[in-house]
C-alpha cells in the first residue's frame, strides 16, 4: 500500500514537470504552429539564472529567474520567430533549432561546457512523513506548484478576454485578426506564459538535480514535445495528459523493470509511446481545428 502511494506521488511529481514542459511547447504550437525546441533552453537559462543569483534570498532568486526567462522568451519571439510568422513548417523547425543551439552556445561561451553544481533550496530535499510514507518535500512542492499553475492557466484561458482571444487565435488566426484581435500581442503573451512555465520547471529541476550543463534542457524539451504529440498536437489538455502519462510510465517502468534493465528504461518508455501512437496516431485528445488544418 505504501509502495503504491509512493509510486503515485513519484508519478505525479515527475508527470507534473513533464506536463508543464508539454504545456509550454503546446501553447506556442497551438497558435503559431511552431514546435519550439528552444523551450529546453528557456529552462536551461533559468537554471543558470539560479546559479548566478545563488546566495540571494530564495524568493528573490525565484522572482528574478521568472523575469529572466520571461524576458528571454519575449526576446526570442520578437527577434527570431516573429519574422518567420507564416513560414512553412520546415523553416520554423530549423529556426527553432537555430535558436536552441545559439542559446546553448552563448551559455557555453560564458560558463564552459562542463557540469556546474548549484545548491538551491537544500532544505527541500529533506523528507516529510506523509500518510505512512516518507516523501521528499520537493516532490510535494512540485505537485502543488503544478496544480496551481494548471488551475491558473485554465482560469486564464476560460475566464479572461485575453485567454479567450488566445484560444480563438489558436483555432483560426486569420479569423481572429478579422475580428480585430491584436494577434501580435496575443502571441507575445503566449510566449511570456510559456517562458513562465519554463522558469518554474527550471527552479524545481535545479533544486532536484543540483547540477547544470548547457545541454540540460534538451532532454526535458524532447519529453515535453513527445508528450504534446502523444496527448494530441494542438490540444492543451492533451499536452497535460501526455505529460502525466509519460511521468506515470516512467515511474511504473522504474518499479517493474528488473534491475539489470533499468539503465535502459528510456528505451522501454519510448517503445511504449511508439505503441500508443501506432494505435492512436492522432494522439489521445483530438482537436478538430488542428485536424482540419493539417
Amino acid at each position: 500500500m505504501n509502495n503504491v502511494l509512493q509510486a503515485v506521488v513519484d508519478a505525479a511529481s515527475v508527470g507534473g514537470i513533464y506536463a508543464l514542459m508539454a504545456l509550454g511547447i503546446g501553447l506556442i504550437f497551438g497558435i503559431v504552429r511552431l514546435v519550439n525546441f528552444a523551450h529546453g533552453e528557456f529552462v536551461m537559462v533559468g537554471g543558470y539564472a539560479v546559479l548566478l543569483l545563488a546566495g540571494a534570498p530564495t524568493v528573490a532568486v525565484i522572482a528574478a529567474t521568472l523575469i529572466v526567462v520571461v524576458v528571454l522568451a519575449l526576446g526570442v519571439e520578437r527577434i527570431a520567430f516573429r519574422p518567420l510568422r507564416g513560414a512553412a513548417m520546415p523553416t520554423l523547425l530549423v529556426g527553432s533549432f537555430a535558436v536552441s543551439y545559439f542559446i546553448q552556445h552563448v551559455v557555453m561561451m560564458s560558463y564552459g561546457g562542463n557540469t556546474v553544481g548549484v545548491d538551491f533550496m537544500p532544505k527541500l530535499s529533506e523528507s516529510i512523513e506523509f500518510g505512512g510514507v516518507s516523501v521528499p518535500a520537493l516532490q510535494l512542492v512540485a505537485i502543488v506548484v503544478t496544480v496551481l499553475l494548471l488551475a491558473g492557466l485554465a482560469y486564464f484561458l476560460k475566464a479572461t478576454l485575453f485567454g479567450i482571444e488566445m484560444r480563438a487565435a489558436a483555432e483560426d488566426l486569420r479569423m481572429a485578426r478579422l475580428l480585430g484581435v491584436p494577434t501580435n500581442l496575443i502571441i507575445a503573451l503566449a510566449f511570456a506564459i510559456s517562458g513562465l512555465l519554463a522558469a518554474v520547471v527550471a527552479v524545481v529541476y535545479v533544486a532536484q538535480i543540483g547540477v547544470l550543463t548547457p545541454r540540460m534542457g534538451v532532454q526535458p524539451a524532447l519529453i515535453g514535445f513527445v508528450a504534446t504529440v502523444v496527448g494530441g498536437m494542438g490540444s492543451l489538455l492533451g499536452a497535460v495528459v501526455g505529460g502525466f502519462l509519460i511521468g506515470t510510465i516512467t515511474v511504473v517502468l522504474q518499479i517493474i523493470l528488473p534491475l539489470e534493465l533499468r539503465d535502459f528504461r528510456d528505451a522501454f518508455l519510448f517503445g511504449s509511446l511508439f505503441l500508443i501512437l501506432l494505435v492512436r496516431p492522432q494522439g489521445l485528445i483530438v482537436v478538430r481545428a488542428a485536424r482540419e488544418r493539417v
Partner: protein
Amino acid sequence: MLTVDTLHVRYGSIVALRGVSLTIDEGEAVSVVGPNGAGKSTLLHAITGVVPVADGAITYDGESLVGRPIERIVGRGISLVPEHRGIFSSLTVEENLLMGARGLRDRAERTREIARILDLFPAIGERLHRPAGRLSGGEQQQLAIARSLLTRPRILLLDEPSLGLAPQMIDLVYEILARLRAEGITLLLVEQNAHRALAATDRTYVLRTGRIELSGTSAELSGAPQFEEAYFGFDATSSAGDHSMDDAP
C-alpha cells in the same frame, strides 16, 4: 464610401483579379455574383487585407486600404463574414460572440450588446454555452453574422452566406439581410446564388474569371438576356435551359 479601382490580385503566377473596379455608397446593398473561381472571395480578401494587392487602389472614406494590416482595416468599420463562416468551433457560442464584441468598452457594454444582438437571432440565444462547432450550418451562419455585427461595422461583407444551407435556412439568412438593409447597414454580398443576390440588393456586378463582365441595378439585370451570358460566358439562350442560375451546389 468604398471604391475599388482597377484592382489586380495574383497568387504566384495565377492572376485572380484583372482590373476590377466597383463602388459602394453608404447605405447601399451591392452584390457581386459569378461562377465558382471567378475571384469573388479574392475581392473580399483584398479589401480586408487578407491577400496582398498586386496593382490598383482600394479606397474607403477617401483613405487607401492597400498594404494596411487586417486589424487596422477591420478597425475602421469593415467586417467580413467569410466563406465557411469562420466559426471558432472549440469556443462556445457566447465566446464566439464575445470575440465580436471584444472591442467594446467594458464587460457591461459587451453583455448588453450581445443581449441586444440575440433579439435578432433567437435561435442561437438558446445555445450560448454550447461549443459552436455543434451548431447546425444555418445556426453557424447566423452566429457568424451576429458576431460580425457586434464589431459595429459600417459596411458588412458577406461571402456566400447561403453556401451549404438547406432552403429554409437560406430564406432565414436572406430575411436577416433584408432586415439589416432596412436598418441602413451597407452590404457587399458575394454569391454564386445569383437570383437570391439580385433580389436582396440594389445593384449587382457580374464577375467572371477575374473581370467585371456586367453591372447595373439589380432590377435591370434580373431577367435580362445579357445577364446569363455574362455569368456563364456564352449565349445562354441558344443552349437549352439546362443551366439555371440558382442551382449553385
